[in-house]
Structures are given as structure tokens and as C-alpha cells.
């Protein structure tokens, strides 16, 4: 187990290096640069050239990358060109929002997906299964920018049950915080539960055909016990994988949902840094998202071992 963790962590380094280099190159391909953004309506050729020189933008791209990398290796992610805020402070300020949103959205999606998946698997092809499958496809097909607006219209404007926008920090007011995150979490969950439900349902169906399930039933165990104890655990490997990918993705920010509901999360920080060509901030955020992604996947791999002893024994 320990060697698995060490191996995975070593693997992190080349991944992050590749991600950082790619971002740097892609960002430099965007038309316009930080100098054009900063100068706005005074971007004459002369002022542009002068500012580019000051910002070091006239140096070759790989040299700039090497310089940035050197600073990062010394533990300095730098300061945003535009706001003067340190990159670490900017991420730290927004991370709690993204983490909380991720947890609530994943929680809501799992709460819906798991019982439905089990119920569908038990009567595969039955009427309930077909209705839920239809609902899942419908829910999956609605883009979040539409479901967000519909939810706002219904629950915030018409019924006035929940706020449309306005993030309240957790430390300030717990109830207000949960209310402010309810609609965005619900919007995200609407796009997440169908996939979770589908993978768990199909794994469950094949598990239920295994001999040991027939054996358990034959022994006269209660159906609920067979489903929840004997069948659910070995059926949840794909579920955990999909959930893990979702968690990693949401940690990197849910750009559309954060924008519509005006949540100050990682996604808005990322998109803002792209629009303003704030390369130092952009690189810092991408690096963070990369680390989060690899670490979450590592955690998922370790969960496999917990869920399925065969993996544990095979690995050691």
C-alpha cells in the first residue's frame, strides 16, 4: 500500500510538469496578451512594446516558463499581475467554496442515485426501471445553464424559498451558507446523478447474477441484507471511479454554475485569469487543479483496495 502511494506521488511530478507546460503554451497562443488587456484603449504599438518589455513578455516563451518553474520550485507561486494578490491567497480564499459545493453536489447526487440504482437493478427492465432510466436521460440532457435558470425562476423568484445568488461564508451563518449553496448544488447534482445511477445499476445487475448471491438468497437471508451488504459493496467500484472523477473535476471549479449563481469559487478565478491573460494566476490555479486531480484519483485507487480484497492482495 505504501509503495503504491509513493509510486503515485512520484507519478504526480511529470503529470504536473506536462500540465503546466501545456497551459503555458496554449495561453501564449491566445490572441492578445496581458499587455493588451492592461493597456486597453491605449494599446498603441509603442506602449505595448514598452509594457511587454516591463512584464518580460518579450522574452521567449520557454525562457519565461523556465523562470516561472524556478520560482515555483522555490515555493513561490507569485502574485497576480492584475490584483497584486498572492496566488496562494487567491486560491485559499476560493477553495472552501468549491470544496463545499463539490461535497453538497456529490452528496445530493449519491443520495438520489444509489437507492434508485438498487431499485432498478432488482427489477431490471421493469416499469420503474424504464421510468427512472428515462428520467435519468432527461436530467442528463438538460445543460446546467438551462437547469440553473429554471431552478432560479421556480425556487427563487416564484416561490422565494431559496436565494438566487449571494454566497454566504460558512463561518458567518451556517443556515445561510447552506441556503446559498442549495440551488447551485442541486443544479450540479442534476447533471451528476444519472451517470452514477447508470453505472451502479449495471454493475449491480451483473453482481446479482453471481452464484454467491443466489447462495445468500438460498440461505434465506433477508432481501435487503443481500442487496445492501452482499451486492452493493462489490458493485460500487465503477461508482467510486465516476464519483472520484466528478470530485476532482468539481474541485477545479464549476465555471458555468459558479458564474450563474455568483459563487466565488475556483472556476471563476480560473476563467477570470484567462480573460485577463493573468498568466501567473492561471498557472497557479492549473497547477492546483492538477494536484487535486491526481490526489483524488490516488484516493480512489486506495478505496478500490478497501472495497475489493482481490485488488489489495494482488497489489501486495
Amino acid at each position, binding site marked *: 500500500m505504501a509503495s503504491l502511494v509513493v509510486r503515485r506521488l512520484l507519478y504526480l511530478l511529470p503529470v504536473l510538469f506536462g500540465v503546466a507546460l501545456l497551459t503555458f503554451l496554449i495561453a501564449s497562443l491566445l490572441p492578445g496578451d496581458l499587455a493588451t488587456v*492592461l493597456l486597453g484603449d491605449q*494599446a498603441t504599438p509603442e506602449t505595448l512594446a514598452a509594457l511587454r518589455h516591463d512584464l518580460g513578455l518579450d522574452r521567449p516563451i520557454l525562457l519565461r516558463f523556465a523562470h516561472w518553474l524556478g520560482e515555483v520550485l522555490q515555493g513561490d507561486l507569485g502574485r497576480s499581475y492584475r490584483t497584486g494578490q498572492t496566488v496562494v491567497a487567491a486560491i485559499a480564499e476560493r477553495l472552501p467554496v468549491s470544496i463545499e459545493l463539490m461535497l453538497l453536489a456529490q452528496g445530493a447526487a449519491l443520495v438520489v442515485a444509489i437507492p434508485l440504482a438498487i431499485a432498478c437493478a432488482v427489477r431490471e427492465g421493469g416499469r420503474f426501471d424504464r421510468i427512472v432510466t428515462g428520467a435519468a436521460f432527461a436530467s442528463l440532457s438538460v445543460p446546467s445553464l438551462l437547469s440553473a435558470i429554471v431552478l432560479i425562476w421556480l425556487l427563487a423568484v416564484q416561490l422565494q424559498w431559496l436565494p438566487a*445568488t449571494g454566497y454566504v461564508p460558512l463561518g458567518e451563518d451556517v443556515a445561510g451558507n447552506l441556503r446559498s449553496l442549495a440551488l447551485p448544488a442541486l443544479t450540479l447534482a442534476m447533471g451528476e446523478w444519472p451517470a452514477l445511477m447508470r453505472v451502479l445499476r449495471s454493475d449491480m445487475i451483473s453482481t446479482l447474477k453471481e452464484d454467491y448471491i443466489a447462495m445468500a438468497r438460498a440461505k434465506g437471508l433477508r432481501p435487503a441484507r443481500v442487496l445492501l451488504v452482499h451486492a452493493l459493496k462489490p458493485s460500487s467500484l465503477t461508482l467510486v471511479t465516476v464519483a472520484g472523477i466528478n470530485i476532482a473535476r468539481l474541485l477545479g471549479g464549476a465555471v458555468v454554475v459558479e458564474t450563474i449563481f455568483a459563487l466565488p469559487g475556483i472556476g471563476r478565478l480560473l476563467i477570470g485569469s484567462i480573460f485577463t491573460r493573468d498568466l501567473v494566476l492561471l498557472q497557479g490555479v492549473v497547477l492546483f487543479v492538477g494536484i487535486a486531480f491526481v490526489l483524488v484519483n490516488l484516493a480512489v485507487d486506495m478505496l478500490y483496495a478497501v472495497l475489493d480484497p482481490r485488488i489489495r492482495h494482488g497489489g501486495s
Partner: protein
Amino acid sequence: MRTPTSRHRSLNRPSLWLVALLAALGLSAPAAAQKQGGAVTVGLELEIPGFDPLKVGVYDTSGFMVAATLFDTLTRLDANGKAVPRLALSWTHSEDFRTWTFKLRPGVKFHDGSPFNAQAVKWNVDRQKDPANKCRCAFYITNIIAVDAPDELTVVFRLKDPSMMQPEIMAPPTANNVVLSPAAVAARGDDFNRNPSGTGPFVLKSWTGDRIVVERNPNYWNTGHPHLDRIVFKPLTDAQSRFASLQSGEADLVWDDEYDYDNIKKARADKRLVVHNYVGSGAQVYAFNTKVAPFDDLRVRQALVMAIDRKKMSQAVAGGLARPALNPYGDGSWVKCENDGALPYDPAKARELVQAYGKPVAFKGLFTATPRGRTIGQVLQQFWKQVGATMEIEQVDQATIPARAFQRQFQLTPWRIIDLADPDPQMYANFHTGSPSALAGYSNPELDRMLERARVTADMRSRNADYCEIGRHINQQAIWFWTFQNSYYAIAKAKVKGIPPLFSGIIDVSDAWLE
């Protein structure tokens, strides 16, 4: 230069001294109805990068709103757009309008406790103009040669060109005009940008993520002000959810623009909401590059301008809310012309002109890479197709338009004449031979002479006549054209009172109160 402006300014200016005196005496006449206390939440258009001019260059509409609460300027505009005292108590000018002397209010302190004085004003301007600081903000104060502080409470602005409306120019809370605490800038360094200190009616309480909270400055020099205890600013970048927040109660006032016309119309029909609208000077404009074909030919330029049906275009892009512009000045300007020489909408004549040109009229037009940019491009494309001209739409990033325009890498480019107190800075820059933003590349000695004369004429009647003549010349030569006037919107709950006219699109909530 992102400044405000005055409407309804009379052509004969009364003595500024008199205005200053009256305003100083009657400044804080309290209206009995203004209730103290309460909190207001404001929905901004964009996230604010900060308040240090050296870092951010200029403030945008969102920055202005917050800056108006944290900082003071030397003057402010009254409801008619005239400058009245704020940090300055009174002012005088030299005969040639090139030297302006301001007497400052004594006893004012910055939020960090350091004193406000003439040195602080001078320090702010010097810092922005210092070439070593390479501040983007310096571009807008090139007319200021130097600021002197002969004593504790006197500042003298020495100008390169005459500026008759200098007190008005210095009123809005732009990055150039707000007075930052020199002591706080020195102490906080890079962190000042997001932890600013001014003399304004509100003090920054917290700035977490994107949410800015300001609280009443208990030591504010203007006794009895502000009225509110607290203002929360948060960016609500999505137009639909911004309006929904207002309806469901998370916001009390939101920024808006005419492209969100559905919601503006809904708000106008809603008794609980009030729509604040202000039509400023200037316009949304386009420049032809007259150095390249086909726009080197007058007939082609005239034909394209005559093919534009602004009413129909307003319907298409803004539900009819956008107000057609036929000259560069607009309804909000003091320049009033009986005849602005605008070419009429006349597609038949336009078609004739295109045919008379003889060659095919095909060109590329630059538009911003936004849904709005695409819509506007497509509407113009249709108008021009109907008269036999073909435009290819090239959508580019907003930030690259100035760069392309200044390098003259365009045939047709969008531009903007913003709402300013005086037409001179922009008219001179946009139309005088050799100026970087004279985008059309058009040169005419007569036009240059008029522009040079208008900026130094003290008599407002002859200035008005000059600017009308300039407008006619440009309209007839069709080197630029104007589509819509600058119109600004805010939507607020009916209980939010005390919002002054939105000069330059600045929504100032610093003196608001709740009914």
C-alpha cells in the same frame, strides 16, 4: 478621461465662486425624510481587481461604484452636472483656464488616521504621472503638467491646454481623481490594492473572494452622512441571475445595460422596482479606414452610412431601448446643433452610390467575440447586403480591438466615445491629423483648424458653433458613423433612495438611504 459630465449645462456659466460659496453654505442641509441606518446589497457587473491605479490602471463601472464609497474626490457633481465642493471648498482659475487653484477642506483624515492635505493630493498625481511607474492611468491626465502644494490647504493644477471644465473633470471617482492615503500606500505596498484607505464615507470592512463589505465611516467629515450603516458589493456577472437576485431579494440595486432590455421592461412594470436611466454624451461609434479600399472612396462610405436603419437596429439588438445617434455628441452633451448634417437613412440612394463606385464593395468588419458583437455585426451585414455591399464579420477578443485599431489593421472597427464633461479631449484625439486614435486616417486642414480653435475658445456659443461645424464635416465625409447614444441603467428596489443621475454610467450609492 473616464469622467462624468454635465447635462443641461447652460452656455453662460455663472461665477464658480458663487456656486462654491452657496454649495459650501448649504451643503449638508439635511432633508428630514432621509432615514439613517440600514444595509444595502449591490449587484455589480464584474469582479473588481483592486483600487491602486498603478495596479489596475483605470476603474470600470463596477470599480467606480465601490470607489465612490471608499474615496472622495476634490469636487462632486450636483444633480445638474455642475461641480460643487467635496474635498475642495472652493476654486479659482486663471484667465486662460490653464491654472486652477483649489482650497482644501481642513481637518479631514484618511481611514488610517493620517491627515488629508495638499501634499496628499500632489503625491497622488505625481505618483500616477511618474514615468518610472508606467501607470496606464497617466494617459488620462497628460493635460496636467504639474501639481503644486504651496501650503497645507492649497493645490494648484498647472495644465498644458486650457480646460474650462476642470472641476467637473475632477469630480467622478475615477482612478485619477480619487485621493488615496499616501501613508497607507507606503505601509501596505502591494496589499494596498485590495486593502485601500481613502477619506470616503465608508470604510472597507472585508473583501473575501469577490464580496466587498464597506461600513459607515464614523469620522466622516460630512456630518450626518452617509445614511447607510453598511453596503455589500458582489459581482453578479450573469444578467438573468442578477435580475433574479433583485426580484428574490438578495440584491437591492443592480447594474444593468440596455441589452438586458427584457428585464428592464419587466422592472419598469414592477411597482416594487425603480429603473434609473441616464443618457450621457458620446456614442457607440465605428471608424472606416479611409487609407484602404473600398473606404478610400467617399461614395462607398456615404452609401454604407445611408443604408443603416437605426430604429430597426435598436429593435433587433436592444428591444428598441437603444437611442439612435446622429452625431458624436449625444443628448447628454452641452453641444446642441440645429443641423448636425447627418446623412439620412436612404437605401435607394445608397444602392446608387455603390453602383456608381463601379467595383464590388467587399470588406471585413471587426466585432467583439461576444454574442452581442455577433448580433450587431449580422444586423449591419444585412443592411449593407441590401444595398449591394458585402461585409465579412471578423470576431476578435475585446482586448485586441484597440491594438488592431491603433496599428490600423482593420477596414471597419468599433470604437466608443465615452460620456465626458467636455467634447474636446475625445474629438481632438479622434479627428485631429496625426493623433493615434484618429483611426480613419483622414486629414483635412480645415477640420484641424476648427478642432484647435474649439478647445481654446472661452465663449461657449462659438465653441458650440465650432463643434456643430465639426460634426457636420465628419457626417458629410462619413469617416466615422454613430449607431447609438450612451445610455446607462441601474435597477433598484423602490425603497432605495438618494441615487444621483448616473453620470458616465457611474452608479453612486454612497449617499443612498432606505425609506
